[in-house]
């Protein structure tokens, strides 16, 4: 794309990071309010598609934490790993564990659920970006 609307060009980057932030927020609030890994992943994909359309695939890919394929793999492995601790305590695979961490002012609830949801998020973001960037790619390879 050689010609881009000026407004889009200047705002897209900002909007991209805003969307990523929103997606993280959706990811984290998912357990108690509408949201979760899958939806958050889709928001991130939308952000990546915005990047790709405005600045091209290379730049969209560079803005991601990992290239699409490794990101997908990371997500799946993380989700897989989140189910493993349960096996050590003799529970079925993917039985989630919770720990309350006392931070003084509040207790933070850490759990393997979060790891699982982050895994879903990363896998969805990675996999759909793989499609997206392959479809939109003008030159070079994505991986």
């Amino acid at each position: 794309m050689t010609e881009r609307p000026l407004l889009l060009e200047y705002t897209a980057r900002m909007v991209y990071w805003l969307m990523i932030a929103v997606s993280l927020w959706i990811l984290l609030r998912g357990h108690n309010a509408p949201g979760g890994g899958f939806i958050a992943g889709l928001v991130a994909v939308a952000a990546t598609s915005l990047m790709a359309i405005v600045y091209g695939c290379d730049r969209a890919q560079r803005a991601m934490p990992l290239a699409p394929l490794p990101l997908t793999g990371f997500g799946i492995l993380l989700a897989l790993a989140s189910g493993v601790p349960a096996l050590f305590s003799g529970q079925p695979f993917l039985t989630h564990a919770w720990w309350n961490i006392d931070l003084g002012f509040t207790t933070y609830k850490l759990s393997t659920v979060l790891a699982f949801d982050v895994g879903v998020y990363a896998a969805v973001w990675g996999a759909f970006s793989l499609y997206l960037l392959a479809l939109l790619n003008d030159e070079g390879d994505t991986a």
Partner: protein
Amino acid sequence: MRDEHAAEHAGKDWLWLAVLPLILFGYLLWEISRTPLPWQFQLEWVPSLELGIDLYVDGLSAQFLLLITGIGTMVLVYASGYMAHDRQAGRFYKLLLLFMVAMIGAVSADHMLVLFLCWELTSLVSFFLVGFKYTDEQARASARTALFITMGGGLALLGGLILLSQIAGTWSLQGVIAAGAGLHDDPRLPAALTLLFIGCFTKSAQFPFHFWLPNAMTAPTPASAYLHSATMVKLGVYLLARLDPAFNELLFWEITLIAVGTITATWAAVLALRERDLKRILARSTVSALGTLVLLIGLPGESSSLAVVAFLYAHALYKAPLFFVAGSIDHATGTRSIDHLRGLRRQMPFTAAAAMIASLSMAGLPLSFGYVAKSVASVAKAESELMALAGYGLLLVNAIAVAVAAVAAIRVFWGPANQAFDQVREVSWRMVLPPLLIAIIALEFEFIPTFADPVLVDAARAISTSNSFTPSFAEPQAGTMITVAEITLLIGVLLFVFWERLHRFLERFSILERFSCAGFFDRLLKGLPRLAAWHTRLLQHGRLDSYMRVTLLAMLGIASGAWLVIEPGWPGMPGDLGGWRDQAWSLGAAAVLIMAGALAAPFMHNRMALLMSIGLVGYGSAVLFLFAGAPDVAFTQFMVETVLVVVAVTVLTRYGVPIRYTEPRVRNALIAVAAGAGTFILLLQMFSLPADLGMPLWFAEKSLPEAYGQNVVNVILVDFRALDTFGEIVVVAFSAIAAWPLLRRKRKHGSNG
């Protein structure tokens, strides 16, 4: 192959490998004399599946084990001479040893699945050995045929064994035999036995699966002697013999075995007369012998079990040497065609001697072990009333065996010398010793029966029904059997004398080739890819809109069919719309959005506008979800719809798809409306069913206390049904990984153009 260049690369000497089976052989003999059979051995493997390495070695197994290790030793010695100049020798030995292990496992397994695993392993090794000379197209085709037949039969066998284990309630072969007649009334038994028959008949090359064995002669001769004559092809016979005590009272069992055995024995014997290749003649006669074995198993009566084991031994001990001889001749002269082979006794005296001795046994002449086997067999046949017709067939079979033996021993080695073979020399001791030794051992059995008798008697007892059975090799009384033997011999000699004329006569029936099982199988194999190509062209034409139409119409057809069959009539409106009514305005607005999009779509001529109107349907649905109490779904729908429309528009512009939409829109619209209406009716039907709220309520109740989450949907996704979610992301990932290379390549083409 035997030029200097090859010799330079000649492999190592692998003769020492023969020590392994030799030790095993000696150990077996020693152990048999020391510890009374049967031996049992159990090793846990997968206890939760009741799968264990359960071994049970009785007389029959011991007989097979002795054959496998004994002949195996000889095969390895022979191969060290036969393959001396072959660079691939190492591969050959590995396969042979692997085969030996599989074979030992197969005949000593008591657990039926262990038997099956070893059985399949032997088929696999056989495939590699038949296709050993993989640069030869003929060898590859033969290997494929062997694999298809034996592995296909293996599948049937697996089904049969599973059924059998369910009927008997045990995986143990001994358990099945112990259950014996108690299984006869089970309605599943005929199916189980039919599958078993297919498995055994394919393995042991019975009619109509007999054709793979002669073709398998593309394997190196040591392998042919070992796998395709002495041991592997007898696995089917082994299993039938093993199960015979349980089922030999069944008419189905008896008749099938006798019929198939007789047909195989006779047909293969006749076909042997049509062959010119020494090895193929031997292979046909092996098939014939296997048929005889199957027939003998099918015969009722006590002496039939003795006949089976005696003939099994005799056949292994004369056919292996004869294969060795054929291999030696091939090795020395470069041909196996009996047209050229004459008077070789001067050049190859020791090989000739081995052939003579082995042929005596094959022809069943007095002073040979084959004679003993044949007389026991005739006693067994005399005991049976079913034998009237089969008897005449077997007379012919035996006569042809006599003729084949004469061809191998007399025709090839006697008569005027062929000038072409003046330079031929005797093969090395490694290829002379094995046939000579085995042939002499077989001869020994007749003179000093104390060696062989205990093992054979044990084996016979293992496959006979009654426990009190004490088989013995009493000398056959003079009388009918002797007369039969004489007649057989006479016909055999006549066949040999008129071999040429008979051959030319049979040659004329080229129709046999076209309508043979092999020809049928060949056409089947060739037809299969054509069928696949045809239906792929029909179904996988690559036109997306057509896929869509077919999918929708099929769905519609199935749904309306189910509706008409199961519950014809108009479903009533769902009674309780409770919460929905409160949201009437918002839901109504969503419905307006959806309908606007849907109604506009058929009238769009511009692809962009079409996409937008479809997007409108999606957004409308999202709004619907939002107000119907499913904010998560609504959220997801919004995101999917957005990404989809954006990507679709971008792709359309970049790939240069014509903006004007020219599909047949009336037809498509009609199909779409019909599919929509069908779905609507189905949904109404669903609502009219009483809803089971057990699961939703359980989830809602347990979500907070057990999974610490207030958003039930998400808790279900990441906790209660986390494994499903995991499966889904894996599917998403794999679909992307699969599509990625395709999309990339497409793009490259596009950018070039």
